[in-house]
């Protein structure tokens, strides 16, 4: 684990808490979960559950997923076109759309007839956005701005260069301030020499 960042698996974990609609084929009473009540479930009656529970039930063949609107061929093609036309970042279906699409494509293949095409579209969209992101970041460091507004980028996208970006900014910051401040600035401290002569503390035995 490293501080300063979340990795994709951890983001996927967060995405699993998002609610999706399933159509159960079993009957269950209300689940009193810590995060709130779920159900009751009746066969063929749509019900909202967190994604992780949907996956668990699907693995036991206890439900089908109502595939979210945005995960259709049409919607994604539209999103891709939009993203290609824009210089800036286009709007996304939700904060965890990438993570969710992965989980859904992994576990609910039967519900998604064009899963391969969809998988490729999602990947294309991410690639387009990531290359925009690198462009912006490159520009940012080049102009050496010390503050930025970064809207509409999702967590998973920043996963690919968040540390590189923040550490790069840190380094640039240091170079710019080299030798400028005495106190606190690491550039001035020189760590292994002693300020006071140590001989004074030595007593010949």
């Amino acid at each position, binding site marked *: 684990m490293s501080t300063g960042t979340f990795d994709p698996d951890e983001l996927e974990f967060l995405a699993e808490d998002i609610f999706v609609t399933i159509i159960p084929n079993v009957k269950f009473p209300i689940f009193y979960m810590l995060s709130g009540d779920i159900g009751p479930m009746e066969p063929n009656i749509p019900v909202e559950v967190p994604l992780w529970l949907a996956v668990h039930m699907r693995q036991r063949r206890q439900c089908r997923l109502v595939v979210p609107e945005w995960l259709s061929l049409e919607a994604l093609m539209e999103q891709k076109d939009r993203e290609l036309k824009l210089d800036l970042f286009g709007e996304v279906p939700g904060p965890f759309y990438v993570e969710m699409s992965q989980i859904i494509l992994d576990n609910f293949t039967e519900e998604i007839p064009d899963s391969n095409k969809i998988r490729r579209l999602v990947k294309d969209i991410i690639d387009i956005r990531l290359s925009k992101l690198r462009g912006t970041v490159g520009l940012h460091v080049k102009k050496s701005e010390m503050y930025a507004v970064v809207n509409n980028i999702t967590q998973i996208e920043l996963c690919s260069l968040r540390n590189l970006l923040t550490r790069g900014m840190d380094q640039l910051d240091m170079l710019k301030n080299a030798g400028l401040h005495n106190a606190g600035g*690491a550039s001035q401290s020189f760590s*292994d020499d002693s300020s006071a002569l140590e001989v004074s503390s030595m007593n010949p035995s």
Partner: protein
Amino acid sequence: MKNASLALTHGNYLSLSDIMVTEEKLLCTLTTDFHGLGYIQPSTRSENGDLVEGTVLDLPLWMVNPMKRNQWLEFQLPTAYQEEARRILCADPGIVEFRQGSRCRFSQNHYPLGLYIIPLADNINNSSLLATQIVKKKSLTLEEAKEVRSSLVSTFQLRFRQIMDWSNKTCHDTSAHDLKRLDRSERQLLEIGKAEQNSLISWNQRKKSKILKPSTAIKNARLMTDYADSRKRARIEV
């Protein structure tokens, strides 16, 4: 130290990379005598065994810094930070190879060494500089230190884009030759960038996410002991 980057290692007492940086040598001229230390530089050893004023020798940065503060020596600005090198860096920063043996003797500690050298500038303004010019001709003036600094900044800004592009490529795309061009801190950034990029890619391809893996430390340790064992065996056979 995990995810080491210059901002975290520079001046950090416990950092291995900072220790390696401060091991870099500078060419120095002593301006005072040191009793009984003549054996350090036998060629210019004085009769009484002292290390004497005027001796020219290479000293590691960790020694230069306190000696310079006491004004017991002057150091020469390494060629990698002198005007010619700065001009080369300014013309095409992406091409320059930060490694020994290059024309301007760029080192793989280009930025951190620069960060240490800049504060060593003599804090004298131009007018008083004129008066002491002859004495100080070898040392680093405040003016020049500023030039060095702005060179470091612009070099880094321009090379950062390249690091970002490289980190986007898959591992084998970046040749060993490319890597050799980078300074230590740039290489650390590249590693950070690659690790991030790879974790996203392999997550995306669902390669490893679900499979739990044994620790690499175990594998490393096994390799190491296997190696030691095979050497032992080899010795016995001989």
